[in-house]
């Protein structure tokens, strides 16, 4: 019982979080006017005419590029805080980052050699 009291705020918050959207949907459903027309039923695409289905087939290259992009994205995530603290970290930080970049460069070298960067 004591435990339940301790977590009461969490439970109340959870219930509220579930109930508020449900109530809002219910109000909208009951009070809102409903006059569907074909134009209204089309998916909203920033106000322009929709251009067919969204389920296109993409070339696998896009996925490859996205994957390779993530590697360098993460590199940036590590480099920014390092650059801010560069003075404090001194030589140790420099060597550490050099090793890290070296490993990433090795990865770049590998995918380059394997032809993952060639578009055609």
């Amino acid at each position, binding site marked *: 019982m004591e*435990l339940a009291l301790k977590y009461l705020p969490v439970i109340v918050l959870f219930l509220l979080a579930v109930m508020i959207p449900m109530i809002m949907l219910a109000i909208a459903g009951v009070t809102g006017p409903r006059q569907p027309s074909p134009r209204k039923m089309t998916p909203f695409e920033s106000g322009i005419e929709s251009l067919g289905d969204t389920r296109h087939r993409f070339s696998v290259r896009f996925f490859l590029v996205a994957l390779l992009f993530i590697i360098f994205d993460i590199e940036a995530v590590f480099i920014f805080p390092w650059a801010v603290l560069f003075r404090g970290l001194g030589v*140790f930080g420099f060597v*550490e980052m050099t090793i890290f970049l070296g490993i990433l460069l*090795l990865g770049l*070298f*590998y995918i380059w050699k*394997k032809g993952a960067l060639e578009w055609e």
Partner: protein
Amino acid sequence: MPQFNAEIARLLMPLFILSGGACMLLAWSAIDEKAARAQAWFAGIVHVAALWSIASLWNAEGWPILNGMLIVDRFALFFAGICVVSSLATILVSSGYLHRFNIHRGEYYALLLLSTAGMFVLVTAYDLMSVFLGIELMSLAIYVIVGFRRRDFLANEAAMKYFLLGAFAIAFFLYGMSIIYGLCGTMNFKGIVVEATSRELIKEPPFLFAIALLLVGFVFKVSAVPFHMWVPDVYQGAPSPVTGYMAGAVKAASFAAFLRLFYMSFMPARAQWVDIVVVLAIATMTLGNVVALVQRNVKRMLAYSSIAHAGYILIGMAALGLDNTKAASGVMFYLVVYAFMTLGAFALISALENREDSRGLELEDFSGLGLRRPVLGAVMALFMFAMAGIPPTAGFFGKYYIFSAAIDRGLTWLAVVGVLNSALSLYYYLRVVVYMYMRKPKADAAPVFDDWGVRTVLFVSVLVTIWLGLGPSGIVPGIETVLDWTSDSLDRIASLR
């Protein structure tokens, strides 16, 4: 300020050797795709170097390093040794195997090295963050080598399944980590136990919830029920040498981190998790053994047997939870023994395999092996007897230590369930022996591709299986040292607590 000095560099030398070797191998295989055999040699040499540096660290102090992220003590080195030896055995078997199926590439060895490096992080982990890092580094590489037969349907299915489920399981683990961090303000093993006892978190539901979530992560990695669904498909779809590696090394490394975390950090809360481990152990043993009874495919059968072995080891974990350090020695002993038995068995299976796809061997493929190749037949029979736990093989003493530790702590009925399960398992292990000796060889039986690599692995596995089987009876010296090491390193963990 980060601490780093020559002493720490020395302690982490095996890690540097393994990961540096992997990087070099990766660059090499990008330049030269035809040099797979030379690259296998290179990977082997890197392993020997890593093994040598592990041995040279044996007398290391064993204090937490890098702000308490890692600890290089005997316990860690013991398991690191198992993992590196398993990996080396895998290389010896793989070379011929991959060559035969035309998938011999240097990347395979680079990934194997990376995965072993991950295991080193996992076994030396002293912080939940390094456990996570180790599991991921180990698993990511294995996800890829499981699907190394890229054009094969089953291999693709296996890799995909393992990856998705593994990612899902690690998400549970991460959630548990975040709750622990929220409660204790630290993820260090020692920090957790200090905070949990001083702030009386032990009976708090969020703390128990976190333990349960961490348990899910480990139970998945050691392939115990109810997170075992991936095991048969993945073990079947993976190249056979990799299957042996997964059953031997991945399981050992995961159990090492499992044992250290629960023995070190969650001992005060043991009343809450021992019962769960007991139930998991019973379910795991029983399901593994019962389902293995009906398997016709040998790889799937050994996959279920691997589940069952995880169940036996969980008995040891339960006894350890009741503060029986002998149980931990039992667990460690069992993992060594199991690693060698399973590596040997899968080395032989790899040598027998001759199909292009990865469906693996059926029982019929073993027909008459004992008559055709008497030595190989006898070796396989030995591994089967050892897995079933028949003396004087090492498998018997593995089970003996674990069951006696359980009885010591009043878990007699659990030991009885374990013994009954071993009896059950005898049926499917002996069926392989029956096929080998009491069926005529098939007329179109393929030759056995036992090159020197396979023979070396078989020889060493047989030697260890017999040596560790005779040792405890006092006939062969040396086993006491193994047991001393294990209890020694556990005292150390307890003293850090």
